[in-house]
């Protein structure tokens, strides 16, 4: 197996296609789990969608229970505690499928299996794991995760909930209020946080039936209406001391490490949601006749379907690539005898990629859901068809698991922190910029795919280094306050990761032999990269204009011009073909199932 690629290192040099995992690498086990999960969603969950959305008593918990019996809730739980202990590819497949019927089930499922259960998996002690995990694995018990408070949203550590040890030393007495807690109304187990004596931020496992714990009425939400979101009130809640999770004052380790996994799984969920839109929308436009023909035939419709397919392809390529990276890292930790909390920390290596997955996929999903409404015309605005629901459901993904703004700040922020600690050779790469630009002067632009796309991609990485390097040199530590710069750097880093994930996958598919499919995936990648270059050029200029002045700026602009030289291609023709492929399959046409 190839050596481990460090988190964020993809920005600093080329990546070899055989080091990335793609859905074409699914083994039989993966395909079988996908089949089970897909069938379960289509046959057991989808028919109940109206009941779910109306929050009919017992429906969601019943479905979670059924999912639990199939093992779909426990891919991350070790076997010794009743789980399936599968790899992260499997976890990703399940998270993707769980979103096929909309956001309500996906959210309830995600909060239970992810942020609800994982803190105990990774940070629980032996007794806690034995006590809680078997029930959570089967869905007999439902978990929720209560971090957010009225005054602690994005600023999660600004926690006002207080814990005080009881006089007899047997309990912590918790007081405070948590809000927007998914699964709250049907949860049995609540993982929450409080500051001991108002100081030491600490995680706790709270049984929902604990004296002093109460649940407020449901929030009235825009979407995911079938999921439960309530405030959890802790009023002298007596939590046994043995329910303290991990170490006193180390709650932040639990909170932040769990979020990484939540973020990459949220990306997988968006993949499922996007595929669902492609499926129902491609069916509709081939039925709907206007101007004497199915509206699918209009080229503008085709263009939309191609764009939706491209964004789905990139999301899918990205999330399975990340899952593959994490699996390799976890194998390494296990081989070296690390325990479960080491695993959570190891995943932190890929914090940048996890944030990218969260932001890029949630924004793709939103664009796709929006076009989903559009292609239905007036019918898309009504509740008779699923387009309207998916549009409302999609919106939350940009808000929870860390808002997209917070995650955007984290992407370059984490990279620069790693650079300072010499974990990635960012500064060396920036130093080498001059040489790279000089070489580029005489470089010929390749005319064939994939060499042409590789050429652009390498230039885009250099462009990122130019923008990030200048910003880092100019602002130093103060760069954290230059949020507009950070946001653009994040945008650039995300586009590069997406384009590269698509390109590496296309190359792997091509290596299996030329086919209609290999041509389509290369076309999808090529269209995206050609549209990306001018966008990246503008962003880089914007960063430089906000950072440098005069001669310094001029020098940077000339570098930008060299790096963004490109020849436009006709994207209309390949996009029409891509749309035809969607129409023929009546779904995302390279789904591996």
């Amino acid at each position, binding site marked *: 197996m190839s050596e481990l690629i460090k988190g964020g290192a993809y920005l600093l040099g080329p990546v070899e296609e055989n080091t990335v995992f793609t859905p074409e690498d699914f083994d*039989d*086990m993966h*395909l*079988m*789990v996908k*089949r*089970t999960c897909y*069938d*379960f969603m289509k046959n*057991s969950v989808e028919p109940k969608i109206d009941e779910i959305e109306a929050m009919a008593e017992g429906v969601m918990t019943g479905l979670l229970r059924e999912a639990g*019996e*199939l*093992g*779909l809730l*426990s*891919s991350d739980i070790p076997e010794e505690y009743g789980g*399936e202990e*599968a790899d992260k590819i*499997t976890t990703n497949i399940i998270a993707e499928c769980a979103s096929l019927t909309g956001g309500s089930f996906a959210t309830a499922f995600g909060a239970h299996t992810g942020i609800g259960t994982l803190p105990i998996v990774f940070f629980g002690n032996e007794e806690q794991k034995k006590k809680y995990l078997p029930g959570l694995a089967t869905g007999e018990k439902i978990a929720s995760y209560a971090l957010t408070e009225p005054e602690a949203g994005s600023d999660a550590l600004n926690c006002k909930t207080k814990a005080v040890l009881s006089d007899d030393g047997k309990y912590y007495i918790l007081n405070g209020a948590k809000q927007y807690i998914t699964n709250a109304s049907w949860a049995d187990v609540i993982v929450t946080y409080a500051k001991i004596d108002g100081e030491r931020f600490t995680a706790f496992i709270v049984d929902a039936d604990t004296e002093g714990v109460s649940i407020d009425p449901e929030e009235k939400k825009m979407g995911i209406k079938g999921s439960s979101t309530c405030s959890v009130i802790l009023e002298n809640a007596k939590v046994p001391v043995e329910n303290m999770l991990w170490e006193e004052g180390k709650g932040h380790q639990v909170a932040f490490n769990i979020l990484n996994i939540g973020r990459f799984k949220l990306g997988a969920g968006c993949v499922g949601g996007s595929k669902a839109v492609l499926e129902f929308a491609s069916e509709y436009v081939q039925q709907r006749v206007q101007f004497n023909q199915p509206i699918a035939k209009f080229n503008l419709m085709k263009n939309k379907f191609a764009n939706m397919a491209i964004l789905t392809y990139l999301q899918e390529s990205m999330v399975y690539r990340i899952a593959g990276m994490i699996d390799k890292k976890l194998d390494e930790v296990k081989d070296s005898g690390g325990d479960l909390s080491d695993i959570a920390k190891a995943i932190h290596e890929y914090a940048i990629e996890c944030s990218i997955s969260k932001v890029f996929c949630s924004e793709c999903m939103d664009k796709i859901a929006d076009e989903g409404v559009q292609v239905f015309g007036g019918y898309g605005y009504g509740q008779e068809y699923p387009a309207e629901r998916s549009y409302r459901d999609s919106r939350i993904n940009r808000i929870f698991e860390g808002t997209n703004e917070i995650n955007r700040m984290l992407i370059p922020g984490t990279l620069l922190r790693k650079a300072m600690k010499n974990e990635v050779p960012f500064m060396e790469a920036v130093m080498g910029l001059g040489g790279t630009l000089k070489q580029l002067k005489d470089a010929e632009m390749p005319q064939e795919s994939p060499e042409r796309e590789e050429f652009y991609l390498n230039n885009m990485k250099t462009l990122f280094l130019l923008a990030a390097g200048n910003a880092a040199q100019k602002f130093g530590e103060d760069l954290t306050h230059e949020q507009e710069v950070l946001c653009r750097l994040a945008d650039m880093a995300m586009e590069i990761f997406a384009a590269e994930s698509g390109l590496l996958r296309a190359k792997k598919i091509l290596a299996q032999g030329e086919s*209609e*499919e290999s041509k389509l995936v290369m076309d999808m990648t090529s269209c995206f990269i050609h549209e990306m270059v001018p966008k990246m050029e503008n962003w880089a200029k914007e960063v430089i204009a906000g950072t440098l002045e005069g001669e310094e700026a001029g020098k940077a602009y000339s570098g930008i011009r060299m790096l963004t030289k490109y020849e436009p291609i006709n994207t209309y023709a390949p996009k029409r073909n891509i749309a035809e*492929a969607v*129409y*023929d*399959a*009546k*779904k995302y*046409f390279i*789904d591996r*199932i």
Partner: protein
Amino acid sequence: MKSIVCIKYVPDTSEAEVKVNPDGKTVDDSRFSFDINDADNYAVEESVLIKEDKGGEVDVLSIGPKQSEVMIRMAMAKGCDRAVRVEDDRIADHDPLMVAKVLAGAIKDKEFDLILTGCWADDYGHMSTGVALAEYLGVNHASMVKKVEVLDGKVRAHRELEGGLMEVVELELPAVLTIQTGINEPRYAPIRGIRQAQKKELNVVSLDDLGIDPAEVGSEASQVVLENLYIPEVESAAEFIEGEPDEKADKLASILVKGGLV
């Protein structure tokens, strides 16, 4: 009870557009997803239910390509015990008699009480493989079975006839039953079963391994020649009924009666 369930790997033609290749004899399957034939899925479930009720074992038998192993393992993940996959491109697989002959050849040396097949396959829709298999093996059969009761040395099969009528027959074992969809509610394969299925025995055999003479099951032996495949033209015959409302109602009623629709 020793059961054998025969399953087929077929394209899902419900989702993607069916296109005939330029040769006029094959279908472009690049856009289809393949999976177990619908009726066979019910046959698998029924065989596992019988095993759970009466004890015993279930073997899976399938003629198909390497890619179909996921489908075969799925049957084992639901409770079947072992499997044989026959792969040989000399089999004239468009002819159900040839297919049945190969299945019979793969079964003849095995002990069995019951063989379950689907009542028809979603691809060619011959509805004859299971029945032909019973003939080749020289055992009893019942087709279109919607309910099975295993008795002592016998099986009672409820056969679905036209118009919802049921015929109940009793057969001496061993026997072949061709299973109708809707007989049960097929389960999902749990992840634990999926994991166990990776370790179950799956033998891949050729005609030579089975001691079957290719000449007897190949296109030379087949009486069926596949000449041409085509997509039927969509025809629409609409009749507009004119007149006052009660005249219209009379006319409509008589059309429905004449057509045998009421």
